[in-house]
């Protein structure tokens, strides 16, 4: 049997109905009242059978032509069987991405280890005559075989000896090393089996390979949960209501209430795509841990999803907007969206209102693009309020309040009235230019009011306070604040802001390595627990945010604080690669579980030639058929 390498072309399948549509649309014949049709009838009677089926035959030929044309483009590939001998000499390079992201795991076995297992399995399948090499790379070549070898035992040992790293990735380095093997090889079939979690977009812009090389990227797609409980509400009438959000799930599930691990109540719920509400007629006992389970055979990840309610009260949040440009799609936009999604009570004020704002009833403060006065900051950080800073996103360098407030002391105008709206200060229609307007409306001294712990490469400050939580918006690239635009931001925010939450339960993202290196040099020590593979380059995905716990011990403060640091959307963004694409190579992306497909790509046969021959045959048949049909007309 065969599989299709370029399944994308199957989207063109509906095109096969085009001849049928043409046939149906133009089947209405033009009627001619003719003097005498006996001559015509005589002619037709002589080729009656031909007349009856001629159009249907032509239609079938055309449909088949399109069908096989699409099939040829999809590249049908015969599965490899051990009985079949490979048609030509084969050389294979096992290329391992051993960067930090492959070191990531939740279930005890890292992705790298899984890849090694697949490679060993593939090695078993390959004929003994296959020349094989092994390369492992991160931001440098970690391991490289001395050359392509037919000694599979040696290769096996090399694979077994590979170790993951906590370094970033340079794909081009690995691919270039693999290419040197391929260039030296004289085999008829050259293959790089590449184990990486690289995104396709990254994959395409890395390097150019020697000719006639197959690159098979072994990766594993993570299934996204198709159901989630967005909120659990305890009702006055001794019931609880679960707000279940369905992402394409349509059907029945069981909703089960557990209390201290024992099943207390169960109800069947019919769910539709979108938001659903399900009620369980039993209120959990006070001071007892309870959880909800959704059970169904049609869940994408598992057949049970468990949800543990975290809180019952929502904090009061103050959102301080330091961005003077109205309508700008800054952090504020995403933070507001997240707070709304989590049903937080919050109020948004301008940065100029913050100093005089009464903070008594506020549980948590989120400050965007603004660093308050040193005294206020000390007062706040010494208190019991959680403070989250989004110090700046550098969208327009030198124009945010933060940039000014970090380097210059801002004093309010004597005429400033608390609660005054920003447009009342600057004028509604006046385009705000901070460099001009700030000096015009505020007294600015050139003293640095507060020394940040350090600045990162993008001039974002890392702030350390006596306690409480900080979120650092250490955007990896200059343009955007990545974390808060991601799906996990809202539940993360909820987790941090929950007033009853103890900080030791808060998990954080490990972020971009450059910044952490700064932290290390500053004297901070980083302790990892068992659930994090490494602190560098750990890439949580939007589907699996991966809340990691990081204990950060400051040498002066001697107190555990919890940092939630933004990460890059992809670690590959850190590697500055040229715009080279992988040229001269056929690239296939294969699921790690589908090892049979991988081995078939390497050793199986391309059947598309057969499909092309049929296409040509059908094309010729169509032409000959039409010629004979039209011959009567000339």
């Amino acid at each position: 049997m065969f599989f299709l390498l370029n399944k994308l072309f199957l989207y063109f399948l509906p095109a096969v109905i085009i001849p049928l549509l043409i046939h149906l649309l133009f089947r209405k014949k033009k009627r001619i009242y003719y003097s005498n049709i006996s001559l015509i009838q005589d002619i037709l009677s002589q080729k009656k059978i031909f007349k009856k089926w001629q159009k249907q035959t032509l239609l079938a030929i055309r449909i088949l032509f399109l069908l096989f044309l699409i099939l040829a483009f999809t590249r049908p590939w015969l599965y490899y069987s051990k009985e079949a001998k490979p048609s030509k000499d084969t050389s294979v390079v096992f290329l391992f991405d051993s960067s930090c992201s492959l070191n990531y795991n939740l279930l005890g076995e890292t992705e790298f280890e899984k890849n090694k297992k697949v490679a060993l399995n593939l090695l078993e399948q390959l004929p003994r005559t296959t020349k094989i090499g092994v390369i492992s790379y991160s931001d440098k070549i970690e391991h490289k075989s001395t050359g392509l070898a037919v000694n599979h035992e040696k290769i096996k040992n090399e694979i077994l000896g590979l170790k993951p790293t906590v370094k970033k990735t340079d794909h081009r380095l690995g691919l270039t090393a693999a290419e040197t093997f391929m260039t030296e090889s004289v085999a008829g079939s050259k293959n790089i089996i590449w184990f990486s979690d690289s995104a396709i977009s990254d994959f395409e812009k890395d390097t150019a390979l020697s000719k006639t090389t197959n690159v098979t990227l072994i990766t594993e797609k993570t299934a996204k949960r198709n159901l989630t409980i967005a909120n659990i509400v305890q009702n006055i009438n001794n019931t609880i209501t679960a707000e279940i959000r369905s992402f394409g799930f349509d059907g029945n599930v069981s909703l089960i209430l557990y209390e201290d691990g024992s099943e207390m109540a169960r109800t069947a719920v019919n769910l539709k795509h979108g938001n659903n509400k399900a009620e369980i007629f039993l209120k959990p006992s006070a001071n007892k841990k309870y959880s909800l389970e959704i059970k169904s055979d049609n869940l994408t990840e598992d057949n049970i999803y468990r949800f543990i309610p975290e809180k019952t009260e929502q904090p009061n949040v103050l959102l301080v907007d330091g961005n003077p440009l109205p309508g700008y799609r800054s952090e504020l936009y995403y933070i507001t969206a997240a707070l709304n999604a989590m049903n937080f009570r919050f109020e948004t004020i301008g940065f100029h209102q913050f100093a005089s704002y009464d903070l008594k009833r506020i549980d948590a403060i989120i400050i965007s693009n603004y660093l308050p006065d040193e005294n206020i900051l000390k007062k706040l950080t010494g208190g019991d309020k959680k403070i989250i800073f989004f110090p700046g996103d550098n969208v327009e360098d030198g124009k945010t309040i933060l940039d000014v407030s970090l380097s210059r002391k801002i004093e309010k105008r004597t005429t400033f009235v608390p609660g005054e709206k920003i447009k009342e200060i600057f004028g509604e229609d006046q385009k705000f230019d901070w460099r001009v307007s700030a000096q015009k409306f505020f007294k600015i001294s050139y003293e640095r009011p507060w020394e940040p712990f350090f600045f990162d490469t993008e001039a974002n400050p890392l702030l350390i306070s006596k306690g409480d939580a900080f979120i650092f918006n250490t955007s990896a690239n200059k343009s955007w604040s990545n974390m808060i635009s991601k799906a996990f931001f809202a539940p993360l925010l909820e987790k941090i802001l929950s007033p009853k939450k103890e900080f030791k339960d808060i998990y954080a993202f490990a972020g971009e390595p450059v910044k952490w290196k700064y932290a290390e040099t500053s004297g901070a020590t980083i302790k990892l627990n068992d659930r994090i593979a490494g602190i560098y380059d750990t890439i949580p995905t939007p589907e699996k945010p991966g809340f990691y716990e990081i204990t950060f011990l400051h040498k002066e403060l001697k107190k555990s604080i919890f940092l939630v640091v933004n990460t890059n959307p992809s670690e590959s963004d850190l590697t500055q690669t040229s715009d080279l694409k992988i040229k001269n190579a056929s690239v296939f992306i294969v699921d790690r579980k589908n090892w049979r497909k991988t081995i078939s790509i390497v050793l199986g046969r391309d059947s598309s030639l057969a499909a092309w021959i049929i296409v040509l045959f059908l094309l010729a048949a169509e032409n000959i058929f039409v010629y004979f049909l039209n011959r009567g007309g000339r």
Partner: protein
Amino acid sequence: MNKLLPVDLVSKLSGKFWRAKKRVEGTVSGRHTSPSQGYSLDFAQHRQYVPGDEIKHIDWKLFGRNEKFFVKQFQAETNLRAYIIIDASNSMGFGKNISKFEYAKRITAAISYIFIKQSDAVGFAVIKNGLREFLPPKSGWERLHTILEILENTQTYGLCRISIGIEELAKRLKRRSLVILLSDLFENQSEVIASLKYLNSQHHDCTVIHLLDNDEITFPYGENFEFIDLETNDSTGGFWNIRKEYKKRIDEFLSKYKISFRKSGIEYHLATTETPPENLISLIIG
């Protein structure tokens, strides 16, 4: 004069003269050869003298050579009795610019005019499901008007059945006459040929003017056409392009008529409706 016989056509017909190819029997002296010997200048034959013959007709030169009495006989000239028969079946209604029937009407009017003008007697009949509207031959402008009136009021209808119409006509013809048939001849070929042969064998001078539309010869139809018979309402259904086969068949069809009529001494003229009437008439009468 009339829409079937417009003034410009009449002017083009002036000086045209239809001479019968065979001998015809008329009632008065005219320009056409009569089967009876008469008194014209054209020598016909010698005949053995029988008592009662006038002595002045004896050919004395021949007597000098053979010592037998022969009398000279001369062709008598008589006026012509012409029958114009027009096919008014539904198939004649076909035509791209002008229907064959309309065209046939014009030709009939023009020929009638020529005959009347040369003092010949013109008879007329329509064939549709047999013989209809039969007018016995008569000379004079009154006859022309009658014919034109009938032509104007006649519409195509039903089947033609030429052979039946010719048979009926043959029964009605008492004397040798000129019979001119205008038709598309889309009938059973053998029957049509046989009926006209029979008429010809009765010593009538037969002329067939075979009228077709140009499309019926060139068949400019490709695929995706359905043809419906004007006479029978039969349908062909859809079919692929058969132009080549059709042209072959129509050539055979026309050749068969041409050869059969020539063999039988029947004058045959094929014309399309695109031929100007005066040209066609010039072609026929030479």
